[in-house]
Structure formats: C-alpha cells, structure tokens
C-alpha cells in the first residue's frame, strides 16, 4: 500500500501541519553561544592587561621601554582634560569618514562599470590590478605636496587606498550572480535594469560587505600614515609628536584608540550585515 501516510517521509509533508510555523529570525534557531564562551574573551583581555601591567611595573620598570596600561589611562585622561584628544579624534575621524564614504560609492560605481561593460573592464582592469597590489600609501608625501597639509590630502590618501578592495569585490559580486537566477528572472520578464536591481545587486551584497571590511582596515591605516607624513592634528599627528618626544604612554594612547576603533567598526559592519541579510544568518534546514 502506497497511501499518503506511509510515503510521507523526509519532513516534506503533503499536507503541512495546520499550526502556523514561526519563522526563524536572527539566531533564535541557531545554536546559542554558552555564557562561558563570552567570559573566555573577557578573561583573556583582563588577564593580558594584568600581565602587561605587572611586567611593566616589576620587570622592565622603565616607561620608555614598556609603558603600562595604567600609565596609558592616565595619559588619556590628561589629554581629554586638556581638550586635546577630542581635537585629534575629530580631525582623524573626519578624514576617515569622508574618505571611506567616497571610496565605497566610487568603488561600487567603478565595480559596476567593470562588471557590466566589456570595454570598461578592459580599460580599467590593468589599472585596478596594478594599483590594488601597490602600497599606494607610499605616495602619501607626494599627495600632501599636491593637496596641502589640510584634511583633503588625507581624504585623497584614504580614497586611493580604500577604493580598490571595494572595486574588486563589487565586480566579483556582480559577476558571481547565479546564472540560473538571472535566467529565471528574464523568463519572468525582467528588464536588464530589473535583473540588476532585483537579482545581481542583492546577490552581490555579501561581497560588498567583505569589500567594506577590507576598505575600513585600509582607510584606518591610510589616515594615520598620511598624518604622520604631514598634518596639524589627528591621531597620526599625536603619534608622531609622542614618538619624537619618546613619550611612550602618549604614543600608546593613539595606538590603543586605533585598535579599539578598528574593533568597533568591524563589529558594527557585522551587525549591519546581519540586519540587512537575515537570510544568511538563519538556520539552514537539513
């Protein structure tokens, strides 16, 4: 007998249960991370800082060779009280944000041109490939010479460093769109523009985020290095000053701030990613 009940296997019911299912959103259906895993990170950081502090106080003793976390905190408080740190953060932050936003949009535009037009690909391809691999940061002094010591020279340095991962990832993302999906969309009557906006672009979003994460890292480095070469304010400027004066706690204020910024931004992009692409973060049915 091949009646319904006996052939109804594999969780593919001919008549699904009447109770309305609840969709799995976010990680409600994914494995929960146990609390002990979170505490492992906290313990690692706290323990590391403690070891650093102890080593600085009792083993090395000289602040010139090894500054300690408490000294860095003191230096930070001093800088904030003098209204200095705020000024540097504002300068670097402005350069970073303007440069990054320009790089992202320019990168998507150029990547789109390369993915959709053969001639654009041939014309731009060699330049992108060459400049992506070149440490363009090395020409920062030249750009400061051209564009002056104010923020715009730094913005330019940020753009020429951060734009290439965006271009490459956008192009790769648009190209990697599943051919079956494009074919299906065309059968449903999608115009070329509809295929782009409804199929290619959404399917490239994960690549855009990957490009953005790389761009953020490169942009941070670009801001600091450009400021080292010539500036009047910024975390790179602070770094150069501290380094010239052999003021190690001051130097580390910049370094720690940059590290924290990098962490926070990466986390932020990840959060936006999960918010924009819930389908990638829902449990797969097996």
């Amino acid at each position, binding site marked *: 007998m*091949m009646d319904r009940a006996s*052939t*109804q*296997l*594999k*969780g*593919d*019911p*001919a*008549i*699904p249960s009447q*109770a*309305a*299912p609840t*969709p*799995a*959103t976010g990680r409600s259906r994914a494995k929960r991370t146990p609390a002990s895993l979170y505490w492992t990170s906290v313990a690692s950081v706290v323990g590391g800082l403690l070891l650093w502090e102890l080593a600085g106080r009792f083993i090395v003793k000289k602040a010139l060779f090894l500054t300690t976390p408490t000294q860095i905190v003191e230096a930070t408080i001093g800088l904030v009280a003098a209204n200095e740190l705020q000024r540097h953060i504002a300068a670097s932050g402005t350069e970073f944000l303007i440069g990054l936003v320009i790089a992202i949009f320019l990168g998507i535009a150029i990547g789109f041109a390369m993915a959709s037009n053969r001639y654009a690909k041939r014309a731009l391809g060699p330049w992108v490939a060459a400049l992506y691999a070149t440490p363009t940061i090395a020409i920062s002094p030249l750009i400061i010479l051209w564009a002056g010591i104010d923020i715009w020279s730094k913005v330019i340095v940020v753009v020429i460093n951060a734009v290439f991962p965006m271009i490459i990832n956008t192009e790769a993302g648009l190209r990697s769109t599943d051919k*079956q*999906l494009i*074919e*299906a*969309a*065309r*059968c*449903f*009557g*999608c115009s070329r523009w*509809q295929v782009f906006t*409804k*199929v290619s672009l*959404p*399917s490239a*979003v994960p690549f855009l985020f990957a490009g953005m994460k790389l761009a953020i890292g490169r942009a941070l480095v670009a801001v600091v290095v450009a400021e080292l070469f010539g500036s009047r304010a910024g975390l790179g400027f602070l770094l150069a000053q501290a380094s010239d004066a052999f003021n190690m706690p001051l130097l580390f204020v910049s370094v720690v701030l940059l590290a924290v910024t990098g962490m926070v931004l990466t986390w932020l992009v990840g959060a936006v990613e999960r918010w924009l*692409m*819930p*389908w990638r973060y*829902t*449990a*797969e*049915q097996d």
Partner: protein
Amino acid sequence: MSAKLSVSNLHKSFGDLQVLRDLNFAIDEHEFVAVVGPSGCGKTTLLRTIAGIETSDSGSVMIDGKVVTKPGADRGFVFQQDSLLPWRTIWKNLIFGLEVNGQLNDANLKNAKQLLKLVGLSGFEQFYPNQISGGMRQRVNLARALALNPQVLIMDEPFSALDAQTREMMQLELLRIWQQGRKTVLFITHQIDEAVFLADRIVVLGRRPGWVKTTVPIDLPRPRELAVKRTAKFGAYVDEVWNLIENDVRASISEDAQAPVG
C-alpha cells in the same frame, strides 16, 4: 479546436551545430503534455525560445495564435534548479512575477495567498528559502508561476533535484493542483515514468538536432493515484517510450564517454 501553444517548423543552429530541426508540436487548452528526450535533444533551446529570450532561425512559437517575441506573463515557468531568490521571503518570492510585470493589485495578491494555501504552505510567508525543504521550495516555485495566472504553465524538470520519495509525492501534488484549474501544461522531463504518470500526451524528441520523433497519447483514467504506476498498462507505456529513445540515449552516453573530460 485551435492550439493553446503551438511550436511550428522551429529551426535553430549555433554556428555549425544544428540544435533544432523542423520542430513541430501543439498543445490544446487544458492539456497536459510532457516532452521527453535524451540529452542533446535541444530542450534548453526549445525552452528559451518558448520563453522569448532566444530567437529561432525560422519557425515560430505561438500562444493563442499570437507569435511569441519576448517574455510575457502569459507563460509561467517552473525551473529544475531551485530558482527562488535566497534574500526574499517565501511571500516575496511568490509575488516576484507580479512585481516585475507591474501586476501587484489586491485581486492578484489575494489570489497569491490562495495559491500558497493550495500548495500547502500557508503560514510560511516569512520564511526564507533556505529554511524550508527542497520539496517545499518547488511548491513555492509552482505557486510563483501560477500567481501570474498564465495561459500556459511550462515546467522544466521541476522535480529532478528531489529525492525519489519526495518526487513521487510532488507528482501527486502537482496532479491534485492541476485538477483545480486544468491549466495548459508543458512538462519537460528525463524521467519516462514521470511523463507517463502526469501527461495526457508525450512528445518524444530525437537528438542532435532536436526533432519530434513521435507523440504517444496516454490513455490512463484521471484522477490518477500512485497505484496506477504498478499497472500493466502503465508499464507498457513506459516500455513504449523507452524503446523510442533507447538508441538515442545509448548514442549520447557513448558520445559523452568519448568527449574530453572538462
């Protein structure tokens, strides 16, 4: 009675390779026609031509006597792979065809809701495709094609990626859904028993170039249950169709074996 879908004298070559040669067949309204053929019978080209995204060298595809020149809402497609957009929920996938054809009105949306119920997926609107099983995804694909209320439903090996048990259930489901409105169906498959089970008529294609060898009417009572698959008459139909394409299948296998790998 004039044909709902007619394919007349279709020729197509890609360079030196002739893919379709004088292909002719017609499907009447409310008729369920299956097309079977060995690999190399030009079914992909045939499908793209019917879809209106490929142009033939000569001959024509007509729906209700009107020549097909571009994609349109008069044809609904169900594909072999799962062609749902992974970033859209089931509901958003379901109304994709309506959306791109500018037909998102209340009546159509209400109809879409009904279709979701018809395929047994009410309550799954907010799920993403990766959260439901392969069989369920193909139900959504079917509902998506039907949401446009097409004149002809074109199915391209819709169940080939499913496991054998799910496939049998889906065949049964398809017949159940088809009985409701008896849409005109063109069903392309490699599986002969699937074609015999579903169709009123089987168009058998020959290979390289593709041409219509013969048409086999299937005289089995409807509605059909899976038990019909174990009747002698069913077996006789399967044998008949298999004998028609056996030599072609052998030829295609030996050709594949000789072709350089990669």
